[in-house]
């Protein structure tokens, strides 16, 4: 009798075990659907104030592998030439007038507004988060993610994933205290060519910035490979050389 109860319990647990495996698999697929592993892209970041006034930044970004990314500010003139570099948990900011890379942290923001450094220099979700729970709800998966280490900017993410496209439609980011820090809304799925089809617009709002909104627009996203030396401090003043 005891054995049959144990078997019944294990049978009940099987879907949960299976779903945990699926969760990781879905997260990895979502990462690849959002960005190729090695790519270049152009992004416009718009901070919109409650009165409608806005401030825009244009950034050229490159990424290689799981944990190397670099970005160059192209606009506005006041920020042009600034660059950022991320190697895993290490982040640096290069400002031409300062002339040397300075270490920065993921929670700071090089542009102000709702986007912080972790948003701008984002790595793969599967690189930074474990899947704690996955549920199916209509045409979406709901994923609960937990940061693998304390060095990750957001302790928990609640992710709403389109079942058919395996792309996020909404992500809520929480602090370790459980406080909601921001919500990202993924919109405007666009074919970038080369097999890349992903949301071209990410709108972000935050209870910490009431009535403010930040928008990230993607363009020119394509696969491209780079030498490892591109992701070093010495190359930060030379990122412009990668642009064609």
């Amino acid at each position, binding site marked *: 009798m005891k054995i049959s109860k144990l078997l019944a319990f294990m049978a009940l647990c099987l879907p949960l075990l299976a779903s945990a495996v699926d969760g990781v698999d879905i997260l990895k697929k979502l990462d690849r659907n959002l960005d190729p592993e090695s790519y270049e892209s152009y992004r416009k970041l718009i901070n919109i104030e409650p*009165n409608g006034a806005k401030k825009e930044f244009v950034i050229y970004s490159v990424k290689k592998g799981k944990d190397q990314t670099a970005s160059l500010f192209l606009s506005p003139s006041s920020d042009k030439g600034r660059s950022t570099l991320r190697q895993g948990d290490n982040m640096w900011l290069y400002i031409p007038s300062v002339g040397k890379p300075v*270490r920065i942290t993921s929670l700071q923001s090089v542009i102000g507004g709702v986007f912080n450094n972790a948003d701008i220099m984002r790595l793969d979700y599967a690189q930074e988060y474990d899947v704690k729970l996955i549920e199916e709800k209509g045409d979406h998966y709901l994923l609960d993610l937990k940061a693998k280490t304390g060095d990750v900017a957001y302790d928990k993410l609640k992710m709403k994933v389109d079942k058919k496209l395996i792309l996020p439609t909404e992500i809520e980011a929480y602090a370790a205290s459980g406080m909601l820090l921001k919500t990202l809304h993924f919109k405007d799925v666009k074919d970038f060519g080369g097999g890349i089809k992903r949301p071209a617009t990410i709108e972000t709002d935050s209870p910490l910035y009431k009535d403010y909104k930040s928008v990230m627009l993607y363009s020119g996203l394509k696969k491209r490979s780079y030498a490892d030396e591109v992701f070093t401090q010495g*190359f930060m003043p030379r990122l412009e050389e990668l642009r064609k």
Partner: protein
Amino acid sequence: MSASSAALTAAFATFLTVASLPASADEFKFDASEFEKKLFEFSGYLEQKEEVLKPLSDSPAYKLNFPGVPGREWLLRSTTTLEASAKLNLDPFVADVRAQASYAGDALISTTNYGKLMEGGLRWSAGTGLTFDLGKRVQRWGKGYAWSPVGFVERPRDANDPQASREGFVMASGEWTKSLSGPITTIGITGLVVPTNDSMNADFGEKKDLNPAARLYLLALDTDIDLLWRGKGARPQSFGFDFSRNLSTALEVHGEWARTMDASRITITDSGATSSQSVNVSSYLLGLRFLTEGEVTWIGEYYRNGAGYGAEELNNYYQFLDYALTTSAAPGLINKALMAAQSGYGKPNPGRDYLHLKASVNEPFDWVYGAASLTSIVNLNDHSFQITPEISYTGFSNLELRVRLVILGGQPHTEFAEKAFSNRLEVYVRYFF
């Protein structure tokens, strides 16, 4: 405020109005082709700075800078600065130039800089990890925020405004970088020469020499490490190291250590007797950056200036100045006072031990794009100090507004109590193009 300043203020007000117009309906359109790489790029900034200064008319520094000028309660000064940069992208070569012109005027003095080459030259990217550079360049070595003891081949930065634009030296350099797997993930080697003679790099040194220098950079175990060296030439031989590491997402620590061999150190007594010694000196710096949960960034640095002067030595120097600048003193003493100032006493921070502490907060009280900071620099030997509260705003595209108050204090015959001005209010408006 002068007529030109008033016109500039009006122009900036127009920019403010235009920059704050509400977003249009097509705000979410973006096409990367609008940002294609250009063959030629031109950029820069125009800055208007208005200052209210409180002169210390009895201080030796005031008398040296404004000989025979009677004291006054306040002094208003306007400074207009134009800095322009141009870049020609001829892959794999990049030619660039950065030049600055300025005008500063007040009731006592006016100075015009019609154009100074700050940087400029030709860079050849021979490969992703290999570059060669020839021209006037600013090398920024070290990890310190306010000071850099290992800045062997650069002009010293202003500890009270570390990000201020600086002029380079003419040099030839090569840099090689390689990524690795293992505990050392990046290695980089920089070699350079700073040739000096009567007409080139005269303020680096007038002795004819190549002045070689080198830097070895390592990213090892998530720590930035530099080993640095400057060969003996127009300046004495120096070597040292620096490091920087994030201990957590909110805490960074850094440090520098430098040793200079056979450095010339001149001291002066209160009666004006000078002596010169050849000494080996060590300078070092330890610092940290810490981001609190309340989003306040603290930067703290202790700086040991090995060749600097202790409280007693500075006191002797200021006593000598008091004597040399009296009307009854022999005329030759003023020249001696000027020479002593040039030998090291007149440097922005001539003391031996300093503490720099800065607390800054971005977007205080939900003031988006606003920033506020409080900076203090203390001479730990004579306990004189400088405190600088500052606010800035970058919410308007390509405009930066900055206001700061510089307050100096200390007992008589101490570093910050003997400057030409005791307090000053500075207002900056900078437009980037």
